[in-house]
């Protein structure tokens, strides 16, 4: 890992302004990974809303487990999948703070399915940032609940077979029918324009919580070039051409009353 000063130097050379809510640490993510982009846009959103000093995040067990090294905010760890329960505990005893959980698809849609469904159903006034990369990154590229049919992973070497492995889960649509969910949107981080859109969704999610309007979740379709076994460029194309067909981007539910 390059030193912090090296990171700062390279920021300067590239004319890059680091959001205050992002630390100087160089992330451990693979080249072309979506986590870094999403970390940054969340940091920008916190800076713009002026909530950095009152935000508490819950990091998942997954590639983003080291989130506490990257955001300049208070961060708690959570056991794998229990992230929304930990966020619930924090928010209920500190209702004046902004609380978000950041979760991968294994964390949120497999082992933590009960926790996310019930946090949404209770209408917990928290934000969930859900990183759907259709694979388990941290453990070496196994099938996730969001893995596409025919997608090869370490545990679906012949491709995901509906009969054997079931179907990809659409989390936003699953949560849409719960009366407790307020705002659900799916975005991608596949182009600068889409990243800006994704940031607008994050801002809206934070505002929903700041207004006390309840549960919001933003799902990010995010590249994992390493376990998609694709180049960074090809991974971006894969999102735009393949992933969006199974996980259509857009606002799934909006009861925020915001425009």
């Amino acid at each position, binding site marked *: 890992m390059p030193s912090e000063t090296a990171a700062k130097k390279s920021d300067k050379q590239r004319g890059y302004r680091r959001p205050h809510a992002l*630390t100087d640490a160089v992330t451990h993510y693979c080249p072309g990974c979506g986590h870094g982009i999403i970390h940054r846009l969340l940091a920008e959103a916190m800076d713009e809303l002026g909530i*950095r*000093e*009152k*935000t*508490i995040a*819950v*990091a998942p067990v997954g590639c983003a*487990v*080291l989130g*506490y090294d990257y*955001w*300049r*905010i*208070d*961060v*708690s*760890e*959570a*056991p794998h999948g*229990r992230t929304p*329960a*930990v*966020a*619930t*505990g*924090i*928010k*209920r*005893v*500190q209702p004046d*703070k902004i609380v978000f959980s950041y979760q991968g698809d294994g964390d949120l849609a497999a082992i933590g399915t*009960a*926790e996310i*469904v*019930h946090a949404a159903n*209770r209408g917990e006034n928290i934000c969930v940032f859900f990183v759907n990369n259709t694979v388990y990154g941290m453990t070496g590229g196994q099938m996730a609940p969001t893995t596409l049919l025919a997608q090869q992973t370490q545990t679906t070497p012949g491709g995901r077979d509906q009969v054997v492995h079931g179907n990809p889960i659409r989390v936003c649509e699953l949560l849409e029918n719960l009366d407790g969910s307020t705002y659900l949107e799916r975005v991608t981080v596949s182009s600068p324009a889409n990243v800006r859109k994704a940031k607008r969704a994050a801002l809206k999610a934070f505002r929903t919580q700041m207004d006390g309007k309840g549960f919001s979740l933003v799902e990010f379709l995010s590249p994992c070039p390493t376990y998609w076994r694709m180049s960074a460029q090809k991974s971006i194309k894969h999102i735009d051409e393949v992933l969006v067909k199974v996980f259509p981007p857009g606002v799934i539910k909006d009861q925020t009353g915001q425009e």
Partner: protein
Amino acid sequence: MSANKILMTGNEAIGEAAIRAGVDAYFGYPITPQNELTAYMSHRMLEEGRVFIQSESELAAINMVLGAAVSGKRAMTSSSSPGISLKQEGISYLAAMELPAVIANIVRGGPGLGNIAPAQSDYWQGTRGGGHGDYRTICLGPSTVQECVDLVYLAFDLSDKYRTPAVILADGRLGQMMEPVTFDHLGPPSPPEKPWALTGAKGREQQSIKSLFLDPDVLEELNLRLARTYEKIEQNEVRWDTLQMDDAEVCIVAYGTSARVSKEAMRRARDEGIKVGLIRPISLWPYPYEPIRQAAEKVQFFLVPEMSMGQMIEDVRLAVEGKRPVYHTGRVGGNVSNPKEILDAIRDCCEKV
């Protein structure tokens, strides 16, 4: 001045004691025989303007506790045996993250779904950590409803002081029986400052609470620090009670409901001229090895009545170190020995030695 006494079940008394101890948040999932506790908290916590959630599972409940604990608040959950098994993952994380929390286990018959009758078969789970990794939890075993009150209040203080979870291990009979109790002697809660709590990085550096330490040397540091904490707890927090040990030739070691039944058996044995004394562990971890070690110098044998096939007996044997015979007696499956059964066991053992 006579104390104000109220008639309460153990379960309700545990709840009220937690409230007197200043519990900020309670999270629970229904399971018999501790339902009266969750039900009690469902209205008392709201009356007090504090947090109550009936969670979707014990997994969620213990992790909500974790969330409240990282916030620096006093948090509690309760359950019975199968539910405690589910909480063990979270308890291991609480221990690793050096977080205070109180967990009440109103033990029922097991293994598996077992039944809803009282048992003491979760002793190993309660005193050995129970979950994965190198950790311990403070474990307190009340034997009266009043002691449920006093030990719950103490559990909050100890758990804050040592930044480690504390377990109340009471069997289903204690949870559901009624006795008069008082709360008059409990002072106002005095939780310590918690500068480590996650309250937002306002005017200070960001901080995090975690249990992941990829570098073995760093994790080893945590393991060693925890070990030092446990050593301090072992030095300072051992609690037990003795009864008629001065002239005892036979020593019963029993906790919780088994200790209550043992007292009556003891009285009858003494009527017959058998000099029986009792050592009653109150802190099950840290365990009162020393008084048992001392008793081993003078009594002929030990008898350990338990509502299990013999779990605490291992601690008694660790203390006795083979110097005297140590016998087990007890009923299982949710049954509770009666005094006559324990008296019979005393007589049988007398013949054996």
